[in-house]
């Protein structure tokens, strides 16, 4: 009798590692999740609340602000989206999605109650705990408010741990402002919020200009101590954070305390498909949140 090779079932024979990231079973595993609410924010952006169906899984699912998930609509597409809700709510995420392509055009047409698959959370987050006791600058341009909403929620829930908190938000036009209904609530919690648009419309009464304008006002005339003890989170299109970070730099906010979130094409979220590489760094593993010093050292980052 000549010998036959034995089949190895890699999954069955794998040991259960401590970390989710090391478990071979997790590669393609997606949580079944239900779209529990769909709320149009503008004509292009919609807010989805998505809840994991299985109660046990729901309990286990947690994330930190800045992380993203992969959302899958079977047969349509799977794509990365930043989590835009509070990290203290387990097993549930809010995503604010702009319609720009295949999946994102399809999603606004689905009904409440539809099931989707989600994988993750993936990537690095903003180091919120490190920021305790410090001033925080939260700066968003356009869709950048979406990933910023999660650290904002954290700050609100832990307001006493932070000193000065400033939100600076700019968009092209007033019609593009997201989450308008929440500004008042944020401001109530002793948070200063500046909003500026590049082009006003008849209804707009606020300031018009670039996001760096209110930022300059906030930063000017403070003492060195303030700058040194300030953390900044910058989310938005690459051109914007280039200017913003330059300004922060001029005011000597430490580069290691400035955080940005990079966006690249992604197909896996797990450091395998290589589509998100900047230079040769995986945005999905080492990022999407990077401190500014690291970004400066990445080729082709901005």
């Amino acid at each position, binding site marked *: 009798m000549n010998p036959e090779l034995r089949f190895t079932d890699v999954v069955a024979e794998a040991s259960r590692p401590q970390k989710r990231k090391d478990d071979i079973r997790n590669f393609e595993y997606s949580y079944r999740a239900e779209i529990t609410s769909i709320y149009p924010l503008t004509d292009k952006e919609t807010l989805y609340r998505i809840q994991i169906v299985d109660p046990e899984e729901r309990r286990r699912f947690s994330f930190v602000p800045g992380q993203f998930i992969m959302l899958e609509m079977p*047969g349509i597409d799977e794509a990365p989206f930043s989590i835009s809700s509070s990290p203290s709510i387990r097993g549930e995420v809010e995503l604010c999605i702009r319609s720009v392509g295949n999946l994102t*055009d399809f999603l606004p047409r689905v*009904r409440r109650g539809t099931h989707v698959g989600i994988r993750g959370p993936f990537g690095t987050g903003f180091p919120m705990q490190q920021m305790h006791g410090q001033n925080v600058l939260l700066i968003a341009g356009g869709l950048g408010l979406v990933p910023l909403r999660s650290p904002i929620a954290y700050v609100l829930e832990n307001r006493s741990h932070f000193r000065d908190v400033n939100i600076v938000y700019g968009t092209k036009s007033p019609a593009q402002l997201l989450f308008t209904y929440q500004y008042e609530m944020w401001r109530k919690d002793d948070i200063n919020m500046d909003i500026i648009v590049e082009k006003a419309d008849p209804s707009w009464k606020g300031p018009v200009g670039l996001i760096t304008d209110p930022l300059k006002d906030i930063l000017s005339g403070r003492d060195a101590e303030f700058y040194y003890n300030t953390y900044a989170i910058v989310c938005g299109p690459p051109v914007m954070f280039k200017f913003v970070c330059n300004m922060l730099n001029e005011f000597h906010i430490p580069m290691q305390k400035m955080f940005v979130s990079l966006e690249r094409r992604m197909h896996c979220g797990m450091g395998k498909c290589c589509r998100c590489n900047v230079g040769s760094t995986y945005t999905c593993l080492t990022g999407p949140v990077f401190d500014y010093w690291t970004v400066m050292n990445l080729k082709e980052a901005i």
Partner: protein
Amino acid sequence: MAESRTRTYLGVPMYRPRVAFFEFSSCEGCQLQILNNESTLLDFLSLVEVVNFREAMTEQSEDYEIAFVEGSITRDDEIKRLKRIRKNAKTLVAMGSCACFGGVNQLKNRFRNPAGVKREVYGAHPVDSGPVRAVEDVVGVDLRIYGCPVSKDEVEKMVLHIAIGKSIVVPKYPVCMECKRNENICLFEFGEPCLGPVTRAGCDSWCPSNRAGCWGCRGPAEDVNLRQMIRIMEEHGFSEETITDRLECFGGFLSLMKPERGKGG
């Protein structure tokens, strides 16, 4: 049909468009490819309502949303017909190389003397025929299905995507990608010319997989390096004539070739 109105994909209502097929100067092979789809024809037909398909049905209607147009345009009456179709259709799809680039038919444009071309075939007898044009040279085109003939999978995919509301994408990269995916050995190894490196993929490298070099029926891929392609062909010992034969065969590369070889030359 009531049933069609309630059809959904993952809860999203589907759209069952009224489609029409039209042909101009061509071999009608692209239409035939659709009928050739025996195993999925019924599923295909359930996604659309065919209201015009001269090759297969007698009924005709002017009320349609999507017009699939096959063939190149050579005569004034064709231009008139095409313009009417454009007016009626919400979406006009240029189907096949003839519609997209003029196809093999545009080869006659390479003669500087159109009267001589006519004489060659019809003698002194007068025939009405102008230079061969692609559909988009006459009216606006919304979507293109490349290929001579079109691949039935692509047509089906397009219709399916329209029905469920998924975007329609064609590969931007060249045929070589698919050729390698199909684990072929490159035809240049065997001393055969091939336009795979500059031709838009999507045919699943049909010809190279059958050991025949690509003739570029799907037209250029995006950001192609034609100069380098020509140099490679020359280095492999292929005559200028062979290179030109391939590049001009279906008309897709004309705009990238030397100006004196351009359309209507």
